[in-house]
């Protein structure tokens, strides 16, 4: 996250080194013969790097007793065609005067013997394990076959079902597959696998990946593609009129509430509803709240305040992690440009193309200016801000995790219906992240003579010079992988018509056409209206089958809206209009009174929360700076911790407790408490419902178990799970403060942070 200081420091470090080399005149030595010798010796089984250190210390103790190098008898040819040669071994020394290799033939012989014995034993063990595994697999196959035949009607019952036995994809087997959550036809089988299957294929990939370069390519080939199911469902839907769409939204919501036994709050009267809609659309009260809603919405969405407000919100979303100063004139110009697009009713799907596809430097059109500003704000430091922004802005996925590992490797496995998971599945693999990063290779940002941050685009230059746009990344086990530029769905970037340009432009074109971007826009508009996304891809939001079901229902609604948004020519005004006309915004924004809240049972509190989370209690438009609420929550957590009676209580906030009904119940506020105290106790009250989910605990344990992650990295991982980008330094500072309150207990602190991010 806060990469700038590290990057600056690295830049300084490299520069200083070259300066030092130039001034001191110390040039690199020629190590050719030394390396060749070491390689030949290693091939002859004479020395390994680890042994070499020990040998060096031995030899330094008694250099006079150093033995001559043993005679080499065999070496691996450096080329397949090259004959094996015995090479004379020079007595090379390191710059410190120590010998590279000095061995005793007898001790080497002993080592080789031991190594051979150990290798034989290991091979035997491996054979045994393989045999055992094979037997288990055969057993499982037999059991599966038995179950299959039990479900398929027997030949005696129905003779045509002989074919069913021979071809399992018959009606009855389809029912069985449907029940088990598997796709029923061949086109659906291309859709991403459930978590368990994904894990298995990963293991297979892992075994096949003996060498990073090979394995990277293999990995690239296995980038999950957009499922046939998802594209089929998004593409070419019947175009409905606005009233039909709003009716369908209301129907979905009614089903959702009914399924959760939620009683929605009362409806607003006409004038109140008109006022709220006007505020959501333009930020201004309605001039004539008694007029009909549809004309009012039409008038509002065609107004300049609407265009300005929504352009501001989108730009704030895209550039949430911008490196440009707040008052930069380019930001204002960008907002003005998109406000103009909205006002003119241009298709909103063109936004990614405008932001990514123009000329970065030297262009004169408005699109070029937009592209230049976007890259100046986010490029640099490995372009990770840019990749994250593309993920969150245009694909509606959080790519923070997959930068370092496959998402399934740390996030607790959660079974979710495909309708909910499909957008996120594009970004579950680390290789997909790095392919996207490779698409931006050659783009950087620098500060010019006037102190202005500007983007630099060398993609075309690199491609012309035949330089590859590959990136390298580490797997969790330390192996290196290589990633080639590729589109998020796994296609080659050359497949786009912008292939004559550069990968960046191909990506822009792909995003402009992608159904995933449509679904992302729906989710973002919904969040801007109601304060929370329609479908959440955060791992904790579906840690129970009930939650998964809720997410699936919401996913259906998202898909409907995405289809209609596409069918209506990506008209942002219409999309916003349908959403604000829905029943969810026409409900009173009710909250339990203080007396109700204090007297409520845990079940009632949970019901209130559920109603709020499912848009049954009106809406509260959020500001563009979403992270301020998290900061407020974290500050409240800190204040809570500062209270002496709470500092050592195990059960506060997100800490694990022996049981929810333990005695450590936070004190209820008295009537005379000030507002701030009330907030703190409100947090504590909510804690009664928020014992850490198993998925949270698993995530924290996983983070802490990783030796590669520093405290800062752990905090970054938690911050990355927020549905929006956080201000790095402030979040880190608050996390550090919390850590101090926990007396250095990282586990407790991370759980608190997760709790804060959830709320």
């Amino acid at each position, binding site marked *: 996250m806060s990469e700038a200081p*590290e*990057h600056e420091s*690295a*830049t300084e*470090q*490299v*520069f*200083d*080194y*070259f*300066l030092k*080399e*130039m*001034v*001191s005149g*110390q040039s*690199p*030595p*020629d*190590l*050719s013969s*030394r*390396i*060749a010798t*070491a*390689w030949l010796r290693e091939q002859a089984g004479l020395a390994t*790097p680890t042994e070499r250190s020990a040998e060096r210390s031995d030899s330094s103790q008694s250099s006079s007793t150093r033995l001559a190098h043993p005679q080499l008898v065999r070496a691996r040819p*450096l*080329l397949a*065609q090259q004959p094996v040669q015995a090479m004379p071994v020079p007595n090379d020394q*390191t*710059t*410190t005067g*120590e010998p*590279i290799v000095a061995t005793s033939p007898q001790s080497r012989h002993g080592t080789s013997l031991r190594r051979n014995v150990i290798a034989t034993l290991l091979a035997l063990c491996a054979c045994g394990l393989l045999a055992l595994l094979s037997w288990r697999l055969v057993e499982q196959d037999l059991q599966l076959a038995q179950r299959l035949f039990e479900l398929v009607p027997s030949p005696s019952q129905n003779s045509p079902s002989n074919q069913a036995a021979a071809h399992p994809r018959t009606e009855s087997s389809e029912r069985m597959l449907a029940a088990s959550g598997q796709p029923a036809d061949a086109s659906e089988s291309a859709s991403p696998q459930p978590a368990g299957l994904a894990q298995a294929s990963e293991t297979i990939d892992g075994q096949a990946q003996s*060498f990073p*370069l*090979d394995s990277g*390519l293999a990995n*690239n080939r296995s980038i999950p593609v957009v499922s046939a199911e998802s594209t089929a469902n998004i593409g070419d839907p019947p175009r409905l009129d606005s009233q039909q769409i709003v009716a369908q939204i209301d129907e979905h919501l009614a089903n959702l509430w009914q399924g959760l036994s939620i009683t929605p709050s009362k409806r607003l009267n006409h004038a109140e509803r008109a006022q709220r809609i006007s505020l959501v659309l333009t930020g201004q009260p309605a001039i004539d709240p008694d007029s009909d809603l549809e004309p009012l919405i039409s008038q509002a969405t065609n107004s300049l305040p609407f265009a300005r407000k929504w352009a501001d919100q989108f730009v704030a979303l895209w550039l949430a992690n911008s490196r440009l100063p707040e008052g930069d004139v380019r930001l204002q110009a960008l907002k003005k440009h998109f406000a103009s697009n909205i006002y003119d009713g241009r298709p909103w799907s063109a936004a990614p193309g405008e932001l990514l596809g123009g000329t970065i430097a030297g262009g004169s059109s408005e699109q070029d200016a937009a592209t230049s500003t976007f890259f100046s704000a986010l490029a640099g*430091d*490995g372009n990770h801000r840019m990749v994250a922004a593309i993920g969150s802005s245009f694909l509606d996925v959080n790519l923070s995790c997959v930068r*370092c590992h496959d998402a399934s490797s740390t996030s607790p496995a959660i079974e979710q219906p495909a309708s909910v998971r499909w957008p996120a599945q594009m970004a579950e693999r680390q290789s997909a992240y790095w392919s996207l990063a490779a698409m931006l290779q050659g783009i950087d940002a620098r500060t010019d003579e006037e102190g202005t941050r500007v983007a630099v685009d060398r993609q075309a230059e690199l491609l012309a010079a*035949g*330089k*590859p*746009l*590959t990136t*390298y990344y*580490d797997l969790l086990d*330390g192996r*290196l992988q*290589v990633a*080639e*530029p*590729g589109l998020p769905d796994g296609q*080659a970037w*050359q497949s786009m018509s912008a292939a004559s340009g550069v990968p960046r432009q191909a990506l822009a074109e792909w995003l402009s056409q992608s159904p995933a971007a449509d679904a992302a826009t729906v989710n973002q508009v919904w969040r801007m209206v109601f304060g929370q996304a329609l479908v959440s891809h955060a791992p904790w939001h579906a840690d129970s089958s009930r939650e998964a079901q809720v997410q699936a229902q919401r996913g259906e609604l998202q898909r409907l809206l995405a289809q209609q948004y596409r069918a209506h020519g990506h008209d942002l005004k219409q999309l916003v209009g349908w959403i604000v006309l829905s029943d969810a915004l026409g409900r009173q924004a009710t909250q339990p009174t203080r007396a109700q809240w204090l007297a409520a049972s845990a079940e009632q509190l949970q019901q209130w929360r559920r109603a709020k989370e499912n848009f049954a209690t009106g809406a509260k438009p959020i500001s563009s700076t979403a992270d301020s609420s998290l900061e407020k929550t974290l500050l409240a957590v800190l204040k809570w911790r500062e209270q002496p009676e709470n500092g050592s209580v195990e059960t506060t906030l997100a800490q694990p407790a022996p049981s929810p009904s333990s005695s450590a119940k936070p004190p209820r506020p008295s009537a005379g408490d000030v507002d701030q105290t009330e907030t703190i106790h409100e947090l504590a009250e909510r804690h009664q419902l928020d014992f850490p989910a198993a998925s949270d605990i698993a995530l924290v344990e996983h983070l802490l178990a990783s030796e590669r992650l*520093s405290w*800062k990295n752990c905090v970054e991982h938690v911050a990355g799970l927020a549905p929006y980008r956080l201000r790095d330094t402030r979040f880190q500072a608050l996390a550090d403060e919390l850590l101090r309150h926990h007396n250095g207990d990282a586990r407790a602190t991370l759980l608190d942070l997760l709790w804060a991010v959830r709320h």
Partner: protein
Amino acid sequence: MSPESKEATTVSPNDAELELHELVQLHQVMVWRYLRALGADAALADDLTQDTFLEIMRRPLEQFNETATAAYLRRVAHNLFISRRRRESRMTVTQHAEQFETAWLRWAGFDSGNELLDSLKDCFARLTHRAQLALRLRFGEDASRQAIATALGITEHGAKNLMQRAKSQLRECLENKK
């Protein structure tokens, strides 16, 4: 997949194996300098350069092109360096590799750094004698700031400013040469 990688995947395994001698000749200077820039002393850089190439040779390397191989060698060298430091409990580096790679490419570009050194020599000659002396003392003789200040007859703070300005001028000069 880019045309380059397509070409690379069609290379037969035998042809794809690199000759160690050629690989070392091409990249050893870059790897050694990279390790030195990371903070390795000369002896450690020697050892780790050797280990880097041995690590490569232990596996069948498909060479896509020199740039890709160079980047891969740097990553291997970086990982070996970190592993060595961790064994010595001297440093904890986490995601430093990417930043360092970016910084390396910024200055050294796609060659071993020879072009940069040539440019640096040229830019260095344009500095004032006092600035040159300060940098020579600092980077050539590892003199302390106090010693540099005494040698130049200025305050310690003045020496610091002088060196900062000189480095800034060098950077500007290098940027203009690109």
